């Protein structure tokens, strides 16, 4: 049976609420299902104490969730849009991410902040951003960005059980994606990338919804005899350089794709690490595909024009393979 991303997230949360009494859901309207209906029905099933609506103040509720985690609960906080995480930043960066370090390991913050990001359906400049790069810059935060419903199921459960502050970034374009989910699906380890498609000529590194674009690009490239390997990073912090190294050592060409703008992005970080750690393996400069350095437009036509996708990856990969880069 196929399930949407939203249904699978709900199932993961449901199972974790049932498994561990310290798991609590917090967020704006979560008792009513949240803005996207992910938590629908969970308040009725697990009680209003475990699935709590909060005031509309991201700064306050991030502090609340951090405090709850410090006191022994395992809160799963929903920040409705990553665009609003700017309001959570002071707590996340200066408190949540720092407690373990500043207490010499005496305190832990087992907090998962679920949020959704990316552009889809004309949500405009304030509700469409991909801001993950801001969070990978903060030591102490784990950053997870699943690429499909089945991936999200395992990664969300693993994040809840990790015992560390995790920013869990869901892409709104994936919410309606359907996928089979095995009853005995295993939990992936946090920090381990996966080879989503094996290939030998070029490595396409992606995460979140861009993995789907990379897979589509790889299928397209295969038609013209280019064998692309697609890596799904799954977690941006920690970054699985071992899997990247294994792939780059095989293909010697790398393209990194993400929806976020290229400037100061995750791709820049990965490219730098490849340049340092895998210099001798490279046969061509590392290429990046990402959004132009511009806000996401409201008009659907403009949004489509701006967003990077499979076509952009194919074009860049072809350019690299034909010696144009």
């Amino acid at each position: 049976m196929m399930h949407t991303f939203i249904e699978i997230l709900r199932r993961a949360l449901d199972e974790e609420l049932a498994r561990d009494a310290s798991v609590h859901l917090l967020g704006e309207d979560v008792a009513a299902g949240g803005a996207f209906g992910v938590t629908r029905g969970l308040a009725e099933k697990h009680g209003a104490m475990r699935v709590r609506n909060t005031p509309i103040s991201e700064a306050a509720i991030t502090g609340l969730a951090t405090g709850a985690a410090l006191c022994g609960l395992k809160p799963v906080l929903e920040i409705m849009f990553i665009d609003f995480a700017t309001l959570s930043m002071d707590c996340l960066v200066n408190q949540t991410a720092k407690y373990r370090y500043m207490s010499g390991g005496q305190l832990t913050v087992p907090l998962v902040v679920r949020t959704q990001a990316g552009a889809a359906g004309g949500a405009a400049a304030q509700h469409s951003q991909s801001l993950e790069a801001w969070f990978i810059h903060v030591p102490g935060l784990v950053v997870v960005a699943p690429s499909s419903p089945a991936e999200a199921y395992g990664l969300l459960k693993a994040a809840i059980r990790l015992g560390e502050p995790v920013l869990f970034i869901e892409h709104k374009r994936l919410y309606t994606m359907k996928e089979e989910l095995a009853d005995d699906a295993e939990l992936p380890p946090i920090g381990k990338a996966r080879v989503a498609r094996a290939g030998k000529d070029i490595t396409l590194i992606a995460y979140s919804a861009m993995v789907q674009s990379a897979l589509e690009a790889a299928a397209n490239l295969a038609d013209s005899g280019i064998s692309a390997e697609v890596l799904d990073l799954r977690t941006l912090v920690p970054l699985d350089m071992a899997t990247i190294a294994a792939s780059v050592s095989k293909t010697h060409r790398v393209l990194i794709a993400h929806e976020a703008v290229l400037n100061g992005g995750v791709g820049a970080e990965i490219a730098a690490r490849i340049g340092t750690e895998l210099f001798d393996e490279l046969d061509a400069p590392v290429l990046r595909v990402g959004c132009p350095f511009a806000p996401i437009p409201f008009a659907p036509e403009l949004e489509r024009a701006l967003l990077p996708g499979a076509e952009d990856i194919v074009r860049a990969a072809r350019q690299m393979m034909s010696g144009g880069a």
Partner: protein
Amino acid sequence: MALVAQEIPKVGLVMEAVKVVRWLKNVGDTVTQGEPLVEVETEKSIVEIEATASGRLKEILVQVDQEATVGDQIAWIESAEAQVASTAAVAPKPQIRESAVERPSPVAVEPRVGDRIRSSPVARKLAAEHGVDVGAVTGSGPRGRVQLDDVRRAIETPTRKRAPPAPAAQGLSPMRRALARTMQLSNATIPQFTVERSVDWTVLQALRAEFSTKLPHGSPKLSVNDFLLQAVARALIEFPALNATFSGDPDSPDARVVQASGAHVGLVLAVENGLLVPVIHDVERYGLAELARRRVDCVERGLKGRLRREEVDGATFSISNLGAQGPDRFTALINPPHSAILAVGRQRDCVVARNGGIEVRPLSELTLTVDHRIADGRLAAQFLARLVGILEGSDWRLS
């Protein structure tokens, strides 16, 4: 416009035949005087021959894999400089003189400078692993970048393979031919005698271990060969009569012994189907650490056939050390025009009489072969005694 003949210049002492490996220019290409024009395989290495004139490459007379002899004309260059052309075209073929201290004529085999060779990191890595010169590979990438596939093709192309094993039915490889010629020349023209003496490595072994802890970070490990180089250099400086080469026919008024200005010592290196004698120049100037570095560099490039001509030339003396698997003692033939060659037997524990008692010491037999035209038995014996004295002593220069 005038035609200038491009000839094969003389590269080594006994080099006569070369094989064209690769033309670096095509007919019609513009060439500049001094620019690498063609790669040829000599007995010792692959060297680049520079264009002798500027102009346009008009005609290639010797194709890839064909052999040519020193002085042979291998191409025509159409030069705009009529003056140069007319004189060059009638210039006599270069003479092969057995001049002892002959330094290389200014035929460049230096790696090309100026325009940087663009290559990808992984292509360079693969090229290094296979001893392929990235500069000799045509790049298919943007702006001529040499990429992985280009190096793979170069490795697969038969002409790029180093020292292909020649089937028995075929002629000699250039290296074998040169070796045969050199050794024949040595045996036929040099009256050689030998003196022998054993050397006790006890002190040197202890010092080698001690020095190893003092080496700068990243230095190659000290080998007995580094000590041999330093000791031979010191002895050569002390015995200038042996630090020389014999030149000319003894009957000729031109015959002379030419002393060298520094200690230039060859190290015999066994390679596939032959041997090379990379030369470390001015050995007396360097400490053991630097000698080790230079030795490792020479050996590594020697094994890849990438020694420059001047790096196999100019020595007066060579050392042949067949190492731990070698014989107890052996006699080596002089590598013309050297004055002598030292053959180092394997090190083994021997019972020796010391201070009225019996001791077990690590010894090697040293056999010095000397050109009798240059030196006599007494000088050879004194030299060898001094050499052993240095090797058994503790006066070493590390850096």
